[in-house]
Every structure is written in C-alpha cells, then in structure tokens.
C-alpha cells in the first residue's frame, strides 16, 4: 500500500499544478488521507519539485553585470528562486547547522575508508527531518573534494522503500557498481548467481589495491525485515573481513534499530551510531529562520537584498510572527516543517508587495496548521451535521461505545420533535442517505467485528471525530441554525 502511494506521488509530480490555491486544496486532500510518516516523508521530498512549478514562471537569468539594478520583478523572482532552492532541499547548505561533531566523526570515518582502505560500518540515527541525508550529503561532498578520494571511491545508494527485498537490492548494487554481469541496464543471472557473483567480486579485492565501496542504506530498518537479513549479514561480514574495503552507512529514524538485527548480524556491526538530536533553543531557532530567509551578500542587486534582509530582520522581531514560530518550534524542532511554513510564506511575495510581511506568515501558518477534517466538516449539509451532533451525544451518553444508524435516527427524531423549529422532518431513507455519505467521507467508520452480515441500519459504527472538532465546525459553519447549535451545546440530547 505504501509503495502504491509512492508511485502515485511520483506520477503526480509529472503533472504540474498551476496555482498555489489548487495546491493548497490538494494538500488538504492529501493530509486527509492519513499518511504513514514514511510516505509523508518521501512525499515532502518529492513534492519539492512540484512546488517549484507552482511558484510562478521560470526565473530570469542572472545579469552578468553585478552592479546593475534589476527591475522589481526580476529581483523578486531571483530571490524566490534562491530561497526555493534552500527551502526545498535542492541545494545542500554550506555547513550543517548544529551538527559539527557528528560531521567531523563521519567525515573522518569515511576518509579513512577512502584513503586507508579501512572497512567500517556506522548507523546515523535521528528523527525524521533531523538532517541525516543532509549530513551525509555534506560529508560526501567534502570527501569527494579530496583528491585521494575523488577517483577511488565507489558509491552505492540503496533505499529501503525502493529495494524492498534482497533480490532487487542485489541487482541494484551490481548495476551501480558496473560489474561485468551488467549489460546495459540489465543484470543477468538468477538471485543465487547474483549473490555469489557479488560476494566473489568483493572477496577478490583487498585492502590496499581495490577501490573502496561506500554502501548507503537509506531507511536501514526496512532492510532488517528482509528474509534472513542476508544482505545485511553479507555487507557487514565483508566490512569485518579482509576483503574489498567497504563502509556500510545506515540511515534510520528508529532508535531501536539494533534490536531488529539478528544476533550474528548484530555482532558483525561495529556498533557505531551517530545520533542526530537537535538541542536547539528557541533563540537559535530564530537565528536559523533569519539565516534561511536572508539573501546572500553576493546577490546581484545589493539594494534589493538590503531591503529584503532588513524586512526579514524586522519580521523576526514581530510578536505575532514570533508566536507562530514558537508554536511551530514547540510542535517539532525539525527544519522540514519550518521549511514548508516558510516556503508558503515566500511564495506569497509578489510585485505588489516585494517584501515578506507578517500577514504572509500568518496566512501560511493558517494553511499549515488547519485541522485536516475541518474542511470536510465545512462542506456538510445541515442534516449531516445534525447526525454528527446526534452521534456526539450518543458518544457522551454511552461513553464512546459504538452505535448504529437506528440509534442515531432515534436521537435525531427526538431532537426534531422536541426542540427543532427550523428543521423540517426528513424521511428515513433521506436520513439514511445522509448517513451513508458520512460513511463515505470516513467521518463514521464501521467497527469491524468480523461477524456475519448485519442489516445496514444495525451495523455498529464509530464516530471518527473529536468533541472539539465538532464544536469548532459548528462555530465556523455559515448560517448554522441556532437551535442546532444549542442542541450541540446542551449536555444531554
């Protein structure tokens, strides 16, 4: 299921979405789909490309004469391009923020593999969005700038979400290493032959003469679910024996990843873990925000960049903005959520207002923090809303026990008879139809008890809404009849 989603996302990437409005709508839709964190994580990376298309026309080419002042529109599009690259993770930052010791450790480790031919294995562990891939990217960039490493190192990148079993992973490794059983893009031979071939290839090398291979295993924990953990065992075994020098780098967000390894695999792992936990304070966080939004000193139009940077500094001192950033900081410290917030704000900048204003950020925050079900509730009819209120009362009365349609209908009838003046009587089939619509929207879900088929009216259901969500929806509902509101507020139906 995960993978299917992933594929759809990749497809979606190819269809440009043209306005930021429809993008926002789509975002709600997607967030309503209850992603697993893995998909969300991949999606946020994949959508980076799409965001680029949303935010306007292709940027104007940078003028050769630095001093020449750009027109307002050019300046803005250039600034947006720069910031987009930063915020969409298309460009690595110059230096990873707050990860100096980890950076040094990893660089030193990989340098030894590249230069001395020493085999190593290491796990980079940190929550999602903590900068694992970014750290690795920076380290590899630095490593490849070394003369000794540049021509010697072979890099193999695998992802647990793509290489879902050892067979695929082996083919991918062979392909990326350009071994001799690769013809074109195809790898020949059966699974068993491939494994034997790869092991033979790695076995033939030795410490001093063969090129070191860096294996990067993204989503390392997923590789541990492969049958017998054959791939991990073999890679780690090579890293612990006098064969081709390898460095096995695992990236994962699971803290308990070592417990997933079988004991003989675990014994072969060097137990080096690099943890990325951000211990950022809010003040530092604000500094990062400022740095992320500021234009670099080599921006072609100094006047524009001065103005922009000044406005950014002012923005960060604003009380409301600080409040928003603090809420975001309280929610999660990772930069990915910050980036998506800033991205929405930056994309609102246009010729009519050429600097970032606090209103932009507030609007962006509103878009991001809105509850995923609020919009769905917004589009319901009065009848459907009444049914939901009836369900809420049932939940209150019976302390969250499941209910069926008949109970809801009775509750609704009681309300109509006793209190309602504005709502006329609906026929039962009409109410049933409304109920089924709620079922389709998954605001109500059947309790799958697994018993034989029950009549529809009597099937047990659960309301998938929180008390607060219902009340919030009622507050926002345009022209909601007062008696319905009162009914919702009253303690008992």
């Amino acid at each position: 299921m995960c993978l299917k989603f992933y594929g759809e996302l990749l497809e979606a990437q190819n269809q440009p979405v043209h306005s930021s409005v429809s993008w926002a709508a789509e975002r709600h839709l997607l967030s309503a789909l209850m992603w697993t964190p893995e998909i969300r994580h991949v999606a946020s990376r994949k959508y980076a490309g799409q965001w680029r298309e949303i935010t306007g026309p292709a940027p104007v080419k940078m003028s050769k004469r630095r001093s020449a002042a750009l027109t307002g529109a050019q300046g803005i599009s250039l600034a947006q391009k720069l910031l987009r690259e930063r915020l969409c993770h298309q460009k690595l930052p110059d230096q990873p923020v707050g990860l100096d010791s980890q950076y040094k450790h990893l660089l030193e480790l990989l340098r030894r593999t590249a230069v001395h031919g020493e085999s190593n294995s290491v796990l980079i562990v940190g929550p999602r969005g903590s900068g694992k891939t970014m750290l690795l990217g920076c380290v590899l960039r630095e490593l490849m700038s070394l003369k000794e490493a540049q021509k010697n190192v072979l890099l193999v990148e695998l992802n647990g979400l793509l290489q879902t079993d050892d067979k695929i992973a082996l083919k991918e490794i062979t392909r990326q290493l350009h071994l001799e059983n690769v013809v074109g893009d195809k790898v020949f031979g059966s699974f068993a032959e491939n494994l034997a071939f790869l092991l033979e290839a790695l076995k033939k090398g030795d410490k001093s003469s063969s090129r070191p291979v860096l294996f990067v295993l993204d989503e390392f924990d997923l590789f541990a679910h492969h049958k017998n953990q054959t791939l991990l065992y073999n890679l780690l075994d090579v890293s612990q024996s006098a064969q081709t020098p390898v460095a096995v780098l695992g990236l994962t967000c699971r803290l308990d990843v070592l417990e997933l390894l079988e004991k003989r695999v675990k014994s072969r792992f060097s137990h080096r873990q690099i943890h990325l936990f951000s211990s950022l304070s809010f003040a530092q966080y604000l500094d990062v925000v400022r740095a992320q939004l500021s234009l670099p000193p080599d921006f072609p139009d100094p006047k524009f960049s001065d103005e922009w940077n000044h406005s950014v500094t002012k923005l960060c001192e604003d009380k409301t903005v600080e409040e928003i950033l603090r809420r975001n900081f309280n929610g999660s410290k990772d930069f990915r959520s910050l980036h998506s917030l800033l991205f929405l704000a930056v994309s609102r900048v246009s010729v009519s207002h050429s600097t970032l204003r606090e209103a932009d950020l507030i609007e962006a925050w509103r878009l991001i923090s809105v509850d995923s079900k609020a919009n769905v509730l917004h589009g319901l009819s009065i009848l459907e809303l009444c049914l939901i209120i009836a369900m809420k009362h049932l939940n209150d009365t019976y302390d969250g026990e499941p209910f069926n349609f008949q109970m809801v209908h009775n509750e609704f009838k009681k309300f109509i008879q006793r209190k309602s003046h504005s709502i006329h009587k609906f026929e039962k089939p009409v109410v049933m139809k409304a109920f089924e619509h709620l079922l389709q929207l998954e605001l109500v879900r059947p309790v799958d008890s697994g018993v034989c088929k029950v009549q529809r009216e009597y099937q047990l259901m659960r309301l998938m809404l929180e008390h607060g969500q219902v009340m919030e929806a009622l507050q926002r509902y345009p022209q909601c009849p007062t008696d319905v509101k009162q009914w919702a507020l009253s303690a008992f139906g």
Partner: protein
Amino acid sequence: MSRYITRLRMRRTYKWNGRPVGEDRKLKRQYYESMSISVEGKTEDATVSLGQYILIEGDDDDNPFVAQLLKLYTDDSGKKKTAVLQWFVRMCEVPQSKRKLLGRDPHPQEIFFYQDRSCDNEVDGETILGAVQVGIYVPVQDPFPVGKSRDILFVKLLWDTKSFRALDPELMQPSQSPKSPPPSSRGPQPRALPTPDPSVMKRAMSGILTRGSMSTGKMSSSEAESLHSASKLSAAKALSAKRRSQAVSGPQVRKKLDLCTPATPRTPRHATPSIPSRTAPARKPGNVLEEARARLHVSSVPESLPCREQEFQDIYNFVESKVIDGTGGCMYISGVPGTGKTATVHEVIRSLQQSAEQDEIPHFRFIEINGMKMTDPHQAYVQILQKLTDQKATPDHAAALLEKRFSAPAPKKETVVLLVDELDLLWTRKQNVMYNLFDWPTRRNARLVVLTIANTMDLPERIMINRVASRLGLTRMSFQPYTFKQLQQIITSRLNRVKAFEEDALQLVSRKVAALSGDARRCLDICRRATEICEHSGSQKNSSGLVGMSHVMEALDEMFSSSYISAIRCASVQEQLFLRAVIAEFRRLGLEEATFQQVFVQHQALCRVEGLQPANVSEGLTVCQRLGSCRLLLLEGSRLDLFLRIRLNVSQDDVLYALKAD
C-alpha cells in the same frame, strides 16, 4: 557436445578379437591382444589393442581418464574382462594445491605420465570407452608444437603424486611411429604387443597417435570440448572404476544439464567478478594510533589465536585423524557470535594444509559454505559442487552428482573437509539438505569430513529430526564466551608490542565486554573507537598520547548507553507533553495501553496547564506519529485515526527521569 553423451545413451558390447594369445594357469587367466567394442546403432566396431591409448570412463564424462592399454585378460569363466593399464593424468586431475608445482601454465592438451605404485592399475574392461586418443612425447626443453589438431594430447612430464619430473628420455625413444589413421576411419589395426614389459611401454609411449575414430558415435567437435572444459571434474582418478554408467539415472540427469548449459541466457560466460582497482594505493598507517587501529580491526588476521588453544587442538586432532585414516565424520561447533568459531576452524585448516604441504599427512581439499551467503538452502549443493569441481548445475542435479561422487568407491580420492557455517539456515521442512550433509560422511567411500558451525548449543535437539541428529553424531564442541582475561590477552596479542593503550584502559574494556556478551568483535570495535577519540582529543592536556581511561569510557558510553533518554530530552515541547499525557492516561486507566483519543484529551489538558495553545487533532496526530517513527511509542496503523492504540516502548520511569532532568 554430443560426443560423450551419446555414449551413455547407447549400449556397448565388448567382444574379444581373435583367440587368446597366452594363458596363466595359476591365476586362471587368458590373455588377449585386442578387444572390439560395438555400439548399438553403429555398423562399425571400434577396436582397442595392447599398447594403444584408450579412454576410461571416470567421474567426469567430459574428460575421461587417459591410459595406455598394457594387458587384456579374462578369468576362467570368460565373463569378466579386465584391463591392465598405465595411467596418464590431466592437469585437472592433479590436486588443486599441487598444480602450482608445475611452475608454468599447463598446455591445454598436456597430460602427464602417472607414476604411483600404490595405484591400482587394473580396471574392468567394460569401462573402456573405446578406441584411442593421444599423444606426442615432447622433450622437456622443447616448446609444444603449435598448429596441431586439438585432439592430440602431449606428454612432457611425469607426475608422481608429489612433484612433476622430467620424463626419462631413455623411456622415450622417438622411434617407429605407428600409422595414424585419419579421423572417422576405422580404428587402428591391432598391434601385437602382448607383454607389458617396459620396452613396450617405451615404444608405445613415444608414438604419435592422433585420435583414432571412436566409432561410438563421437564426432570431432573441439568446440564442444572447449566449452566443456570449464566444467571439468578435477577429482583424482577412481581407478578401480566399476561401471557406473549402469546407473539408470545417468542419461536423464545428463540431459537436464544439456538443456541448461547453452540455452538459457546466463551471466556472460567470461564475466570475472571484480571490483575495479584504485588509482593510488591505500595509504599506510602513519602513527602509533593508526597502526594500533589497523591491528585492532576485526579483519586483520592475527599471527595466532590466543585463548582457543584447547578448542584448536580438539578440532585439529579430529580433522587430522580423519584425514589420515581416510574416513569421514561430522562435528558440531556452537557458540555465541564473536567467540572465534570460524576463525579457529580456519586456523586449524591452515596448519593442516601446511603439514600436508610437508607431506606429514595426506592431501585434502577444503571447502567452505555459509548458510547466510546463499539464497536458499538447496544452493548448498550447487556451491559445494562448484567449489569441488568448478561445475555449474541446478540444485537437483548438483545433489545427484554429489551423491554419486560421495558414494562411489575410489581408493585414490582425496579427503574433502567441508565447513558449513551458519548451519541453522540450511533448515528446510524435510531437512534433506542437512540429512545429506551428515549422511555423506557415513558412506564407506566418501572420505568427507563435515564441520558445522551454528550459534545455539542445542540446535540438533531443537530443530533436527531424529534421523538427522543421529547422523550428526555426538562430536560436539561449544565455544564459551571469552572471559575478561582472555579478551585482554586477545587485544594485547593483536597489538603486539605497539604501545597505544594504558593497562587499566584495556582492563576496563575487557571487563565491560565480558560482562555483557564476551564478543571479541565488540571488544575490538570499542578499542578502535577509543583510539579515534584519543586522536581527536590528542592536542589536549593528556600528553602521554596513549589511550586512557577517559577515552575508553567515552567509547563505551557511545556504544552501550541507550539513546532513548537523550532522544526524549531533545524532543520538542509538544512531543514531551504527549509522552506525559500517555503516562497520565496509563495511570488513569491502570493499563499499559490507550487509544489516541484518550491520550489526546489528556494532552489538551496538559497544554492548558502549561499555558500553551492546545493543539488540534491533526497536530496531535503528527506529534504522535513522530514519536512512533522513532519507536518511543508503539503505534497501530495510522488508518485507525482516533482509535489507534498507543503503547510505550520505554519504561515509564525512563520517561519521567528524562523529563524531570530538564
């Protein structure tokens, strides 16, 4: 290709030509001069006669054994035909370890005069495949003639099981060369050489004999031969070969192999697996710490294995006695990971091979397979066969070939020592892989020693069915985890006078590891990490330059301390609140499990207490999922939304401890 295959499909009949030329009354033997072999479906018979070079059926259908026919006789009943031979060996039949003694690459058509008194030179006459092949004697100093037909074999040297020697030129008089009939014509006329005296040999030896027609349906297909040369059986000769072609399964198996060799597009045939070599050689370690680090790497092979002397001796004695006696047996070795099981076995084999080199014990083959390095238990057969004979086959076919090899009597067969690592992965439902592995050594002529390694001591009792466990036998050995003294000794011996560690530091590491697992790999890794830490803090006050207690402590801390506490400390405010809410809800319910909805109510209440704006459901769910993806919480699938159940993956005390310290 079809050359030798057809042979198996056709029945051959053997008949004496002419009358007996001599008789031994005492032994009741009648000697003959020649024999004709007729093949079903062929009109012409092939004739073999004394002095001729003949092909004898052997293990390898593609490279039958080569010999010179010296005598032909029958016993008094007249039924059993026996041939007395002078053997020649091909390079592929010389034991692998001895091949380098030649000092040069063998010529592809080279064969060696075989001199070994112990070798049985009488075979069943019906194993003769037919007429003739063979060879030109080439003097030692001369180069091999070029441009000759590929069917000619050359004799240059003599092989006496220990070394290659020049073939006595006195034995090789380049005299009368018998007529070489054109291929596909009838076999050469019998030459009357009834007595097997040396002079006869000499003359026959020196002759030029191009391949006679083996009218048993073979064609001169040198392509086929070269194709098959990749799959030679390098086994030593099974000299007293019984006719094994009688095995009915032979042709069928054969056919199967035929189908799979040329037809399916496999790995390109000449692909040689290798990683490209680097442009500049790797740098050598520069200072003491780097040197120490290189020595402490698990991969570096130590000069000796300390602390496993007893186990080493036991395994050594076991294998040595089996090799000397030429019998077979099984041994089961168990122990937790990192206790030196595989390393010890390798060490044993190394020293046994050394003594074999010095001819203290007979030669043997060592083959290693690893359950983790194959994709399927049945691949074990394929790998064994490939390592034994360089042959590729499907698992079923490989099993059949191995079965045949290990059950066939052959006095000159080398002992094979087979190491099966990670035995538990060879488990199949019917356990036939394990069964075969343990059954082969019990065969009378197998000469197979199987050493098996796995982690659990009671594996035989736990997963093996009775008939497998019984065949494994009771020769067991278990490697105990290293004690701290042993670990210390291991590090010291590895460092080998490179002074990089303080004594106390070493002791700390070894005690810590011994208390936890006794895994030597772990111990070495920690030491390695400690040298790195030392190097980085090297500029600071601790000027001794040695790895001290503080460095080791830091390394131990990195590797052993749980990361949960620091993860909780570094979590965001909402995440910490959520954890609090989870604990509060657990206390309220008195259970260790709650739904998201229940926790969320607590979470909102806590937010209000802390003076934060309460999060909405989406935000709450995001926070919950983030904690779940780190595995601080254990969650159900997210499609359950409000009703997904939450459990803690850390103890409540740890969470409270981590949150209190703030």
